[in-house]
């Protein structure tokens, strides 16, 4: 009969020790999988709910003939811009069909910039004619701005006490470069994001990597979603449009728009 060696005892001990670790790893991975599944289910459910709600709001509206939808969108677009022109303040028109972003003042296009890249939520791709017109049939109003740069930079300067102080103050200049990314929350419960970029490839890599301001914003949204999911509630879903334009123009538009500016959109 063969006797057990000290080595055999050691291997048994190690096996037992790693069985505990194995159970922990399996248990941990299963919890992660369960969390992802619940998160995905509730997040997608939130989008579906939002779509149902939008559709319910247009119930009873006149049906839009599919053959005329293009023309009706054109009509809604011009009508909406005309309404915006009746305001005294500067408004923003977003023409995703022609890749144009324009600042308009009393119907006059004061600035026009080519959209370098854009992406819109699946919600917009799936909406029907009636939902489209309820969303974009008239000008929208900006409710809130969040931006990576100051919207209205206004410095307070102490008057110099003498000519020497005045001369010294003239030589101080601000040369720091800040990334330009801003978000506006619109009154029909969706967001318009404007990203300042200097090339299409830069916009794509930046969006994927989610650096800086944009990353912090995404992280905040995820944290809010998780807080809801922990309570087994569906997170709030806000469809969004992300537009990339040259950085200088993104900055100019942000600073030109008044607090509750009107926005017209054509998709």
């Amino acid at each position, binding site marked *: 009969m063969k006797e057990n060696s000290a080595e055999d005892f050691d291997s048994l001990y190690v096996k037992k020790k790693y069985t505990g670790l*194995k159970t922990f790893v399996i248990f941990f991975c299963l919890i992660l999988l369960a969390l992802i599944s619940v998160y995905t289910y509730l997040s997608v459910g939130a989008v579906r709910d939002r779509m149902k709600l939008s559709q319910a709001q247009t119930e009873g509206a006149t049906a839009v003939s599919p053959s005329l939808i293009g023309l009706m969108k054109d009509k809604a677009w011009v009508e909406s811009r005309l309404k915006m022109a009746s305001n005294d303040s500067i408004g923003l028109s977003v023409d995703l069909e022609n890749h144009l972003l324009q600042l308009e003042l009393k119907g006059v296009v004061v600035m026009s910039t080519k959209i370098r890249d854009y992406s819109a939520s699946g919600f917009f791709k*799936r909406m029907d004619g009636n939902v489209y017109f309820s969303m974009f049939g008239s000008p929208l109003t900006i409710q809130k701005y969040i931006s990576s740069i100051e919207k209205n930079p206004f*410095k307070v300067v102490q008057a110099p006490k003498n000519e020497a102080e005045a001369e010294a103050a003239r030589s101080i200049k601000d040369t720091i470069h800040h990334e330009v990314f801003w978000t506006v929350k619109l009154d029909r419960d969706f967001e318009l994001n404007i990203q300042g970029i200097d090339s299409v490839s830069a916009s794509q890599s930046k969006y994927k990597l989610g650096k800086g301001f944009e990353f912090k914003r995404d992280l905040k949204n995820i944290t809010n979603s998780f807080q809801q999911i922990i309570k087994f509630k569906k997170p709030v879903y806000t469809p969004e449009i992300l537009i990339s334009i040259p950085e200088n123009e993104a900055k100019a538009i942000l600073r030109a728009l008044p607090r509750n500016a009107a926005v017209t959109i054509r998709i």
Partner: protein
Amino acid sequence: MIRTFLIYLAILIVGVLFFGSMILFGVPALQESTFVLPKMATQAGAEEAGTTRESLEKEISKLQNKLDKCTPNDAYIVINTNDNHFYLFKNKQLIRDGLCSSGKNERLVSAERNYKHDFYTPLGVLKVLTKQKNPVWAKPNWAFIEDGLPIPPPGDPSRFESGTLGAYKLTLGDGYMIHGTIYKRFMGMSVTHGCVRLGDEDLEVVFNTMAIGSKVYIY
């Protein structure tokens, strides 16, 4: 022994990374994907009576004409205060553009003199109210406070300066003007007290093109 431990550790790390990437990218992508979202069925309802392709095209063209009429046919100028660039239009065509200088967005405060003044270029639509050749600048109080100088009484000769405003000025109301400058090196920068400064040649063209009543769009 260590090998088994490392394998479990790797599985844990992969699991955490997978979880993180799903939360950060996977689920948001799925939310936006048309694959999981149903297409909204067009609501049943009455078709708009009498709407034809022709009638819609006619309406759009009418509305577009109305919108086009908002843009003046005569001369107007657009000023971009962010890039400090101006665009001069006539007959809806761009006839000249170039650098300008606009308001520096500053509040000057003097506690000793109990004084404050905001330096900014107002945004919106203004009109040319008057035009003048060889203007003389009547220096307001802030010009002395900003330079740390005592404020002279109204009408004092030290308040009047020739040449500072260049060869022409176009007044826009509330003390704001389009004028020339002796500080050419500041062209393209936000350095003014609210007025719009142009280079000599640009100013001459703007002065000769714009009439009293011409619109000035500032953003």
